[in-house]
C-alpha cells in the first residue's frame, strides 16, 4: 500500500519492518513500513489499541522497537535517546510545567540549547505571537483556559525549530467548537512553517480536515494510507470504509467477477453491479460499501446501473438535511441523505421507494461481520 513514487530524498522519517511487543507474546505493532515525507502532515488514525500511539512513542524515543529500523533523515534513530532526537512533541494533557510561567515554559528548550538571553527572548516572543498569546507570557498554566494551554504547548514544541513535530491527540480534551478552531489553526501553522507533523488521533473528522495523508491503523497494521479524499471515496477494505465517514453496507455473495467489476447477489436474490476492490473469487461472501450521498431516490434513480426497492423505515431530521433510514434487500439500517428542499412531503414510513446508484460508487470489499 506504500506509494513508491517519491524518491528517498523526500523522505524524512522511515519505519522499516518495525515491530513492537510489550509482553513478548502479542505484537501491538506488526511489521510497520512507513515513509513520512518532508513537510507533510501525516495523521495516524485508528481506534484505541490499534498501535498508533505506540508508533508515535517509538518515533519520540519513549518506546524502543522490538524489531526493525526507524530512520530520521539518514540517521538511524533506534539507539538515540529521546532527549537527543530534536523532535517537538505536543501531549494530550498539554504537559505544561505548572511551576513555570508561559515564557519560562517556552524558554525551557532554548536554555537547554544554551542560547543567548536576547535570542531566547526574541524566539519566545515570536512563538507566542504565532499562537496569538503575546499578552499572557507571565501567566502560569493553571491560570489559563484549556485552549490557551494547548496553544502554549504547541508553541513550546515549535519554539526550538525541530524538523519534526509529533502530536498525540492534542485536541482530545477540548470542546467541539474549540477543537474545530484549533484544527484550522494547527493546519495554518503547519502550512506557514513548512514543518513535518505526525499527528495521532482517533477522531476521523479531525484526520480528514487536517492531514495531507492519513494512515488508518487497526490491530497494529496500517490498513490504508492515502489522502483524505481517496480514503473516503476509495476505501480498500471494510474496516476503512466503516471507520472513515458514514457508510452503508450491503452483504452478499459474489456470483461473477470480471476484471474491475463484479456481480453480487443479495440475500433476497437481487443482484448488484459493483467495483471489485477487495474480493477474491466468485462464490465468496462480500460486504459492499456505498456512501449515503451516492444513493439516488425514485426518479433520480432511473438512470442508475443498480436499482433496488426499499422500504422507508424512519425519518431523522438534521436541519439542513433529512436522513431516511431504509430497509434494503432484507437488511435494515441503510441511510440516505436528502437535502431538506428535495424532501417529498407525501412520503411516509412504510412507503416503497426506488433507490439506485452507479456501479462505480459501490465497492465490493472483504466480508465484514454480519451484524443484522
Amino acid at each position, binding site marked *: 500500500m506504500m506509494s513508491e513514487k517519491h524518491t528517498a530524498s523526500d523522505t524524512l522519517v522511515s519505519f522499516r519492518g518495525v515491530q513492537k511487543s510489550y509482553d513478548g507474546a502479542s505484537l501491538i505493532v506488526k511489521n510497520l513500513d512507513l515513509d513520512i515525507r518532508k513537510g507533510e502532515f501525516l495523521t495516524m488514525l485508528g481506534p484505541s489499541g490499534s498501535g498508533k500511539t505506540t508508533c508515535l512513542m517509538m518515533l519520540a524515543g519513549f518506546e524502543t522497537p522490538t524489531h526493525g529500523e526507524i530512520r530520521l533523515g539518514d540517521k538511524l534513530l533506534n539507539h538515540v535517546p529521546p*532527549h537527543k532526537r530534536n523532535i517537538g512533541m505536543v*501531549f494530550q494533557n498539554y*504537559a505544561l*510545567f505548572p*511551576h513555570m510561567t508561559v515564557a519560562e515554559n517556552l524558554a*525551557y528548550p532554548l536554555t*537547554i540549547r544554551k542560547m543567548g538571553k536576547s535570542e531566547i527572548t526574541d524566539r519566545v516572543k515570536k512563538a507566542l505571537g504565532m499562537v496569538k498569546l503575546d499578552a499572557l507570557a507571565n501567566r502560569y498554566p493553571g491560570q489559563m483556559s484549556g485552549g490557551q494551554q494547548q496553544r502554549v504547548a504547541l508553541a513550546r514544541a515549535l519554539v*526550538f525549530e525541530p524538523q519534526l513535530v509529533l502530536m498525540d491527540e492534542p485536541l482530545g480534551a477540548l470542546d467541539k467548537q474549540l477543537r474545530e478552531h484549533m484544527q484550522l489553526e494547527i493546519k495554518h501553522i503547519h502550512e506557514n512553517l513548512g514543518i513535518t507533523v505526525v499527528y495521532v488521533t482517533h477522531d476521523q473528522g479531525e484526520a480528514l480536515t487536517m492531514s495531507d495523508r492519513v494512515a488508518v491503523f487497526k490491530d497494529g497494521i496500517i490498513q490504508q494510507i492515502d489522502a483524505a479524499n481517496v480514503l473516503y471515496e476509495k476505501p480498500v477494505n471494510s474496516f476503512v470504509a466503516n471507520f472513515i465517514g458514514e457508510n452503508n453496507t450491503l452483504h452478499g455473495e459474489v456470483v461473477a467477477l470480471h476484471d474491475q467489476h463484479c456481480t453480487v447477489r443479495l440475500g433476497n436474490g437481487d443482484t448488484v453491479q459493483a467495483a471489485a476492490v477487495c474480493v477474491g473469487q466468485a462464490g465468496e461472501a462480500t460486504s459492499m460499501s456505498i456512501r449515503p450521498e451516492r444513493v439516488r431516490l425514485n426518479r433520480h434513480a432511473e438512470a442508475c446501473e443498480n436499482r433496488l426497492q426499499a422500504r422507508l423505515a424512519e425519518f431523522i431530521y438534521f436541519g439542513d438535511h433529512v436522513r431516511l433510514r431504509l430497509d434494503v434487500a432484507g437488511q435494515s439500517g441503510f441511510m440516505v441523505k436528502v437535502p431538506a428542499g428535495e424532501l417529498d412531503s407525501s412520503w411516509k414510513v412504510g412507503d416503497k421507494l426506488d433507490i439506485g446508484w452507479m456501479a462505480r460508487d459501490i465497492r465490493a470489499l472483504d466480508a465484514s461481520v454480519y451484524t443484522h
Partner: protein
Amino acid sequence: MSQTLTENAPLTAADGELLTVKLAREHRNKQLKAVALVAPLAIFLLLTFLVPIFMLLGRSVDNPEVVTHLPATSQLIASWDRRALPSEEVFQAMARDLTAAKEAKTVPEVAKRLNMDISGFRSLIQKTARKMPLELAAGESMRDRFIQMDERWGDPDHWHVIAKNAKSWTPYYLYSSLDLRETKAGTPELAPEEERAFISIFGRTLWISFWVTVFCLLLGYPLAYWLANLPARKSNLLMILVLLPFWTSVLVRVASWIVLLQREGLINSALMNLGIIGEPLQLAFNRVGVYIAMVHILLPFVILPAYSVMKSIPPTYMRAAISLGDHPFAAFWKIYFPQTVAGVAAGALLVFIMCIGYYITPALLGSPEEQMVSYYVAFYTNVTINWGMAAALGSLLLIATMTLYGLYSKLVGANKLSLG
C-alpha cells in the same frame, strides 16, 4: 408566563413574604445546621486540646506558693527598699504567716518553692516554722529574734528571694528552661556554666530531629517515587508494607529494635557469624540506635504525603521535558522535583515536629546523652512533681513548633502544604 414582572418591584414568595428575607432565613437555617453538626467535635477539642494548652502555658508562669501562704509578708515586702534588711514589720508579718501556715500544714509547699532559688531555704523555713508561734519579751525585736534563731535571716539574699516570689507569676521556670536566671534587678542573665543544662538538651533535641528528618527524606523520597510509578497492583501491595508498622504499637517496635540491635542481638550475632566483624557493634543504647528506630517509625510520615503528591504528577511532564531536549536527570531535577517540594516539605515538617516531642524511643534505646526535652517534661511531671518546670519546657516546645510552622508557611506558603 401569564403574569408579567413589574420592573424594580421587590420579588415575593408565593405566600407574599419578601423573597430576600425568606432566602436569608433559609441560609441562616442551613448555617445553624452546619454548626450543630460540628459543635460536638468543637467542644471536645476545646475541652481536651485548647483549654489544656492554655492551662499549660499558664502553669509555666504560675507562682502561687508564697503569695498564698505568706500573704502578709508578700504585701509588706513589696515596699522594701531591697538594700538593707527588711523592716521589723516584715519580720512580724513573717512570724504571723508562718504560724498560720504551720496550722494549715502548707509550710512544705512554701519551703519547696523557696528552696528552688537558694538551696537550704527549705530547712530554714521548716526550722523557723517549728518554733512558731514566738513569744517576744517586752522591747525585743522580731528581727533580732529571727537572726538569733538562724543567722541566714540576716542575709538580704534570702529576703530577695522572698520578695521576688511575692508575685503570683514568675518567669523563673521559663528562664530555667533556657538556662537563664533572674538578677536582683529583675533582668535575665545566663546561669553559671556548671548549672546550665537545658540549652544543650534543646540543642540535642533539634539536632537529633534534624538528622532523623534528613534520613527519612533520603530513604523516603526514592521509595515514594518508586511506589508512585509502579503499576497500581504492585504499589498497593508495597503500600501495605509501608503501612504495616502502623498496626503495631510504638513500644513493641522499639522493643523489637532492642532485640535486634543489642550487643548479643540478631544483627551483631549475624555479622559476627559471617566473620564481618570481630567485636559486637554498639548499636543500641546510643545515638545510632535512636536514629535507626526513630527513622523506622517516622518514615511513613514522609512517604505518604510525598507519594500522594507524586501520584498526582502525570508522567508526561517528564516526557515533555525530555522531548524538549533535556537530559532525564536534569529534567527530573528541574521539572519533577519542584512539583514534589510541597508534599515532601509537609512530610518533613510533620516528621520534625513529631521528633522534637519524641519520648519513648530515646528513653528506651538511648543513653542519658540521647534524652530529649520531652524526657525532662516527664521527669518533672512524674518524679520531682515540679509542674512549673514541666509546663515551661512544654511551652517552649510548643513555641518551637509554632515558629517552625510559621517559618515554613512563610517560605513555602501554608496553602501549598499538602498532606495528600
